[in-house]
């Protein structure tokens, strides 16, 4: 299972604990996160379920490219960081 780590700055709005989460893509992993923590969804995804404009996600050190479908692949040993983008200030 992939390790998922959220930016510390999201924690004051909605607690998002670091965890091991199953999934073959970023979308599958995040959907599993949101099943357990539904309030977190709207903090990370926009109304069309794409990644929010000023959020960014890294998988094993690489920034994901598919911000709409979140189809970037994830393997059992991946580490996923859900961060704020500096474009948002």
């Amino acid at each position, binding site marked *: 299972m992939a390790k998922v780590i959220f930016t510390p700055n999201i924690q004051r*709005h909605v607690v998002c604990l670091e965890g091991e989460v199953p999934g073959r893509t970023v979308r599958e992993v995040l959907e599993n996160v949101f099943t357990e923590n539904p309030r977190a969804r709207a*903090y990370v995804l926009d109304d069309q379920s794409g990644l929010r404009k000023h959020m960014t996600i890294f998988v094993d050190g690489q920034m994901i490219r598919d911000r709409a479908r979140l189809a970037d692949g994830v393997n059992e040993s991946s580490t996923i960081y859900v961060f704020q983008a500096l474009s948002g200030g």
Partner: protein
Amino acid sequence: MSEKLLISTRKGLFTVSRNTAHWEIDTVDFLGDNVSIALSDHRDGRRYAALDHGHFGVKLHRSTATGWEEIAAPTYPPMPDGYEEQDMWGRPLKWSTARIWALAAGGPDEPGVIWCGTQPGGLFRSTDHGQSWEMIRSLWDHPKRKQWLGGGADLPGIHSICVDPRNSQCVWIGVSTGGIWFTDDGGCNWVQRGEGMRAEHVPPELTHDPIAQDVHCLTQCPAAPHRMWVQHHNGIFVSSDEGKTFTEIVGVEPSSFGFAVVVHPRDPDTAWFVPQIKDEKRIPSGGKLVVTRTRDGGEKFEILTKGLPQSHAYDVVYRHSLALDESGDRLAFGSTTGGLWVSEDQGESWACVTHTLPPVYAVRFA
């Protein structure tokens, strides 16, 4: 008279209270967060605060007996598969709440109804005190909605919502830019209003097109709802037929440009404005912060200065940042440079509450 003010700012929601003869900051909520607008629902005392967290998006909070709780923010529906929409620059327009720009209580006969205007142009209605929201699809799907453009912002938005005090099914909205729209059936059907307004920023053949109008603020007299006032990008306009037609008020000194307007609750001929130098500068004329007032429907205007800074004042007052209480005597306004002034005598004199607030986005009496 209202004894409290809600001040929405770039860095929090400030509650300002009247203590004997002066006003003081009472409490600060959401300190550090961007509060785009707040609503105090006079029907039941609930308060609502719209936040824009930037990275984490737009959120909505509602007051409780002990503080605040996050409730659902209006959410745009999924875009149909394969559907594409572009903004005025040809970029993809995302159906997603970019800003909550208007919050208004429904009529007294519909407790729990709240209207919400957003950027990029969606209008939402809640029937359960903001617990859930329904987009008004009849307006969003209206073919002319795609002609709305950003005015001072990348995206078009609904900033003014007027619910008819005689009939809650009648609602007017102001769009920047997109003019005035009206429904008489609670939002099922919409028509454009606002003949007579004039836009200088478009070619001559479009100057008087109602959809081209950059309405900065639309307000309605509660005791005489046929009377509507507009602070427009190109000046001040007044209607005496429920917004069907407008007449331009010309020759207003020091300027007819501004963002905000309020109208007396019982006297439709009395209205207040905060003028600025138009367009390129957007600062008070001559560095003098003034309020203008008409008492005769726009025939004459008084320039009110007592208690306001008259040199090197560069305060801009946004469209939601001028407020009038239900008495019609007490006014307040806040500025982009953190000033807050209150008048107890219809604007004849003003007292500065503070000049060190964060940039002020909205002022409302609670």
